[in-house]
């Protein structure tokens, strides 16, 4: 029975992303966690710059927040448009603890995020008591309304939210933690990395508990879950509360890292961003939001150093993901698991290289054309030189355009030619041996019940 279950986990229908997160085996694989912990440990030795560490801190915070969000969206099927509120309130709570110097001086900094978590959880308990009564559009719209309300309150209720300037504090006033005062970014990095591992582990374990499993059941078929004797409302409520807790932790870590929390931590734009991050990574897998958070932070922070059009590229990437890979980046990766399991992945390597390299060149060519158009339209008068991909040229002459269009067209033409090769290789790599085919079909029909 074990074998079909595993098969089932890896050969789901890409057309139904919501069903992707399947029960799978109950065994807990420790290896990925050990590797992740080790990677987190050595990362600062590879990238020693303060800015690289700051960006990694930002990534880690986004990862926790996105994982918490996915407890709702991916595991519980609840679409929230106002989840930044819980992270933000957690952050504000931590900041107030930090500014209460007498109390803070007795408190080691690493325990501070718990306050954020508790406040996020408390707010989630209040809001969830009425918003989780039903899922779907009602839940989504209540989350939108509440999100807007609290964001609006943040500029009106200055005593708690500090107006648009926010609330700030100094993390070094806490009780030294084994002699560490958290003066440097690197010390904060390890604090955040510790919380990242802990929260990710706890959230993963939550998804393995009966409540976590029931959340999946309620997501897929609330009626059936009710018939089994579960109150779908309570199941949603529990998911919501735990999600609020971890969002609050993320907010608390934000407060520690930046030492300032402002209205942007809970406004609707932040709520929208976390939705994008999670969906980009893939809601169907536990690690999906992790990939999404990393990719989006790079887009926002690193790509924006290179081009003012970063949001345009991010939007395009996002739309392309929704249209062509609804499983997100994680779904894209997991499509390869069957081939790897069957030991046929090597068949894909060459077709991938000959298809994806021209595709990449074509996409970069398109990006270059976009940049050139933008420069041609908006650059200052007389400033006709521009640099794209380390090449400097005059955007007002025909030559660069011919070259860029030429490269793009040729690259896409090559890609088109190579596509059939890739398709057949894909089919071949994924063709199950005859004996296995029937069990595979069998298991996918069991899909709904699993």
């Amino acid at each position, binding site marked *: 029975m074990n074998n079909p279950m595993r098969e089932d986990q890896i050969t789901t229908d890409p057309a139904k992303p919501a069903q992707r997160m399947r029960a799978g085996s109950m065994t807990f694989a420790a290896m990925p966690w050990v590797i992740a912990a080790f990677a987190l440990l050595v990362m600062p030795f590879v990238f020693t710059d303060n800015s690289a560490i700051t960006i990694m801190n930002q990534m880690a915070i986004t990862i926790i927040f996105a994982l918490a969000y996915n407890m709702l969206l991916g595991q519980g099927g609840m679409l929230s448009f106002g989840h930044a509120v819980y992270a933000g309130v957690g952050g504000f709570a931590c900041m107030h603890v930090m500014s209460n110097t007498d109390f803070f001086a007795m408190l080691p900094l690493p325990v501070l995020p718990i306050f954020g978590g508790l406040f996020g959880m408390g707010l989630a308990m209040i809001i969830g008591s009425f918003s989780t009564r039903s899922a779907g*559009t*009602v839940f989504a*719209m*209540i989350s939108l309304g509440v999100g807007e309300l609290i964001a609006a309150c943040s500029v009106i209720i200055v005593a708690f939210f500090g107006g648009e300037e926010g609330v700030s504090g100094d993390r070094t006033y806490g009780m030294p933690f084994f002699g560490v005062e958290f003066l440097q970014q690197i010390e904060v990095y390890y604090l955040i990395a510790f919380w990242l591992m802990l929260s990710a582990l706890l959230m993963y374990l939550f998804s393995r508990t009966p409540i976590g499993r029931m959340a999946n059941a309620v997501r897929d078929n609330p009626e059936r879950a009710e018939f089994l004797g579960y109150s779908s409302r309570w199941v949603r409520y529990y998911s919501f509360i735990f999600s609020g807790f971890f969002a609050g932790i993320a907010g608390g870590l934000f407060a520690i890292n930046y030492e300032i929390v402002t209205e942007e931590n809970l406004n609707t734009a932040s709520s*929208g961003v976390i939705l994008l991050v999670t969906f980009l990574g893939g809601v169907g897998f536990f690690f999906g939001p992790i990939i999404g958070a990393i990719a989006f932070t790079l887009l926002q922070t690193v790509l924006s150093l290179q081009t003012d059009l970063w949001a345009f590229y991010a*939007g395009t990437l*996002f739309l392309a993901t929704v249209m062509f890979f609804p499983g997100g980046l994680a779904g894209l990766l997991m499509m390869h698991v069957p081939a790897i399991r069957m030991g046929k992945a090597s068949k894909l390597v060459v077709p991938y290289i000959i298809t994806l390299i021209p595709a990449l060149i074509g996409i970069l060519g398109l990006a270059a054309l976009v940049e050139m158009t933008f420069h041609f339209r908006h650059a200052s008068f007389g400033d006709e030189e521009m640099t794209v991909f380390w090449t400097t040229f005059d955007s007002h002459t025909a030559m660069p355009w011919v070259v860029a269009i030429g490269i793009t067209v040729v690259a896409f033409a090559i890609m088109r030619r190579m596509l059939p090769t890739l398709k057949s290789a894909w089919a071949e790599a994924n063709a199950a041996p005859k004996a296995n085919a029937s069990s595979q079909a069998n298991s996918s029909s069991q899909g709904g019940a699993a």
Partner: protein
Amino acid sequence: MDLVLVNLIDGLVTGLLLFMLSAGLTLIFSMMGVLNFAHASFYMLGAYFAYQISIALGFWMGLIFAPLIVGVIGAGVERYGLRRVHQYGHVPELIFTFGLALLIEELVQFIWGRNQMPYQIPDVLNFTAFAISGNSIPAYKVFMIFISIAIFIGLLYVLTKTRVGMIIQAALSYPRTVEALGHNVPLIFMGVFGVGTSLAGVAGVIAGPVLGTFPGMAFVLGSIVFVTIVIGGLGSLWGALVASLLIGWITTFAKSYNIRMEDILNGIGFATPENLDDNMFRDIWAVTSPQIADILPYILMVLILIFRPYGLFGNRDA
């Protein structure tokens, strides 16, 4: 008391404008069962196209052609985008429109830049229609009222009295049956989406000169349109009308009168705390109605969703 009349007119203009957006959105919702987050973006496109056309051909050509272009783009989005995503389910659909809204905003900035566009009221309508005790009512507002009412009547007529409208209504409720009767349902869906977005385009054309034509105009209006149709009841045209007017009047009156939270709290029996400056809730005591006017609709929506999840006029659970 004259101010009440003026406010009624102003609220009517705001409400009718909102209605033009929410009418299209609610039609689209009845059809596809999904909220179109990019709806306000089509409103913005309407304003920008109209501005571009008005430079060359004048305002009136803009009024005619901009909504047509927006409608065609909307139909294209349905045909090549939404229809593809539809198979994945409602959440990806909703997220698709969400992403589309972001992309359209970026595109508009890419093409027109980030500044306000000097899109102006046509000279023919740039005069004061009448004045009520010193408060002038611009002719353009009267024009906006008439256009919106004409559109509502036209829409109602088409939907309830014509054959096309009957088929649309049938297709909304029983798409399979209508398809079996030989009608091209995907085409109807595409058409409804196109018409819905072009209505948003009309709203953009006529609102652009008064409310400003800038890349943030969709974001400012975006979520309030949802609030409207949720309050009115998803899929109900009458609901959209009533909710739009309600929101128009509530916000206008809340802005026009300085009602202080302190007075309300005193009125229901709470005494003002002695030293207010040290009080934890001092900000709540100091709130005035203009401060919160634009978030009142959200409060209304949350309350309605809690006590009447299908909205004022809705007949099905959202």
